[in-house]
């Protein structure tokens, strides 16, 4: 079942690779790299929601906690903590912190479903936000940390526009492709099967909770990678970075982009960043959220599968019939969107044995 790769993907890869050569620094960083970073964090949610049917609002929190590891154990300009460990140590630590935190959230959330998962993960996100704001010993409270630098292997600054863009591209593409690969592994199929029917999964010998927690762990790893890039990008981190408003932005990015394919969150992130950057010229700053909200509503109304679904809908009309890029996603694009409503297909009473 080796899937053929559609030429459109090669074209996209080529385009992304030469993009910073064509673009100026602003477009390379503020649009290109930033979209890839937000896309990576949103990919974490796509993995959970699209493949696992679990909407977690705590994925940005996982990214943020991973990001905090760098100034706390590495260096910062705040004069608080900053143990000074090298990036070789702090980056793996950050990845592990993000993944473990996410797994912990999963452990709490797996017993719930639908809207209750959203509520519990939201509660976690809110508590961590307030904790980081009030805690000065570890998180330096409201101020957070600044002066966080990207690695300079052999004196080569990874934060310079070109290298940083390519770093983000490699990380984003790496996790995107890994997601596609994993979707067809026994684990990936199990996760999608759990999304479709958890009760049957138990009746096949699977530990539903185990699969869900593993999914949270892996998604947390992806989020952490995004968080690390984000803290290099900004050079600073504070509670505002992991606020609930931003967590909602990540949800919007994932849903608007489309949950059915790992490219979705990146499309969503690009749309979001473009809107955020250029809408300012057209409308007042405080109207931005209304604009995002309206765009979100329109897209969800007209294309439940997000921009990705929109593309799949219009493509047959604009070009000669080309076969769909079959990179091997198990849930075909024609399928129905995963349902997140609280009324799951299982009878209420089947929940009491898992409670």
């Amino acid at each position, binding site marked *: 079942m080796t899937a053929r790769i559609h030429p459109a993907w090669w074209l996209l890869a080529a385009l992304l690779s030469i993009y910073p050569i064509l673009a100026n620094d602003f477009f390379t960083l503020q649009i290109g790299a930033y979209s890839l970073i937000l896309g990576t964090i949103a990919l974490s949610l796509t993995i959970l929601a699209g493949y696992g049917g679990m909407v977690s609002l705590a994925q940005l929190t996982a990214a943020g906690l991973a990001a905090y590891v760098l100034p706390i154990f590495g260096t910062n300009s705040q004069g608080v903590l900053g143990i000074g460990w090298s990036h070789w140590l702090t980056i793996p630590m950050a990845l592990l912190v993000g993944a473990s935190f996410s797994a912990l959230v999963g452990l709490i959330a797996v017993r719930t479903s639908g809207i209750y998962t959203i509520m519990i993960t939201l509660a976690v996100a809110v508590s961590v936000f307030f904790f980081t704001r009030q805690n000065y010993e570890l998180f330096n409270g409201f101020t957070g940390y600044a002066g966080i630098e990207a690695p300079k292997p052999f004196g080569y600054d990874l934060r310079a526009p070109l290298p940083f863009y390519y770093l983000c591209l490699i990380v984003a593409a790496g996790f995107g492709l890994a997601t596609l690969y994993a979707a067809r*592994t*026994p684990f990936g*199929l199990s996760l*999608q099967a759990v999304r479709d*029917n958890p009760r049957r999964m*138990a009746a*096949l010998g699977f530990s539903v909770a185990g699969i869900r927690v593993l999914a949270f762990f892996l998604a947390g790893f992806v989020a952490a990678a995004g968080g690390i890039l984000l803290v290099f990008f900004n050079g600073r981190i504070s509670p505002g970075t992991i606020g609930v408003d931003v967590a909602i932005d990540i949800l919007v990015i994932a849903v608007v982009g489309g949950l059915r394919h790992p490219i979705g969150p990146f499309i969503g992130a690009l749309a979001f960043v473009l809107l955020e950057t250029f809408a300012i010229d057209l409308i007042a700053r405080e109207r931005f959220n209304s604009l995002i909200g309206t765009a979100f509503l329109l897209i969800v109304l007209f294309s439940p599968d997000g921009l990705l679904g929109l593309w799949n809908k219009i493509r047959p009309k604009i070009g000669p019939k080309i076969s769909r890029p079959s990179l091997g996603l198990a*849930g075909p694009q024609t399928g*129905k969107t995963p349902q997140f409503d609280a009324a799951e297909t299982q009878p209420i009473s089947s929940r009491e*044995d898992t409670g």
Partner: protein
Amino acid sequence: MGRTDALSRLRSSGQYALELEAVSRHFGALIALAGIDLAVEAGERRAILGSNGAGKTTLFNAVTGDFPVTAGRIRFFGEDITALPPHERIRRGLRRTYQISLLFENLSVRDNLFVACRGVSPHRASLRRAGPSEPAAELAEMLAQAVHLDAVLDSRVGTLSYGQQRQLEIGMALAGAPRFILFDEPAAGLSPSERAQLIEILGALPAHIGYLIIEHDMDVALRVAATVSMLHNGRIFKEGTPAEIENDPEVQALYLGGGHD
């Protein structure tokens, strides 16, 4: 483990696939199962009859652990499984089908069966892709053939016909190495030719695999089962051979009278 328990386990080990001791299940004030005692030998094939709401499906849910029991004990090949979660019971060789199909609608038939085969194997959720020569992949194709779904192997399950979904439901329960299977109305809604296929599949199961089958159609039930337990209002009402049950005046009265209470 107490000595009495040890002795009773010794006595029953190997002989019985399934033993229920005073199993009850309440839903609030409703008593769906009222102290069921049942012993099914290894390899035995038994039909469970009973009118709507008699508690047949609840009995299956109790055995698989889909719903915990309110009271009583369940042993599977001598081992007390009353407190085990469903997936642990399945890993011990128990399988079931559902009265209302519970399938993975967005996955293909192949993937449904593949997942079913992996569920009872070690490394069930590995992060390495399985090659085409992987046992579970081959087994999935074999099962699809057995339940007459090889033509739609790569179709999304949500697009299958009702009859095909019912057949997949059976295929899922045959994955791995089942020791005992619970079939919940597998023939309901099937066409006559699909019914014949079902009877053929059940007949083709190796002799050591026993099963319970809930079936309203007496003709089907009596052809695939050697013994019959009749359930009524959450109790075992009659047990016997198909002929005994069929000719029992009380059973006849119950069935002809609609038998709701």
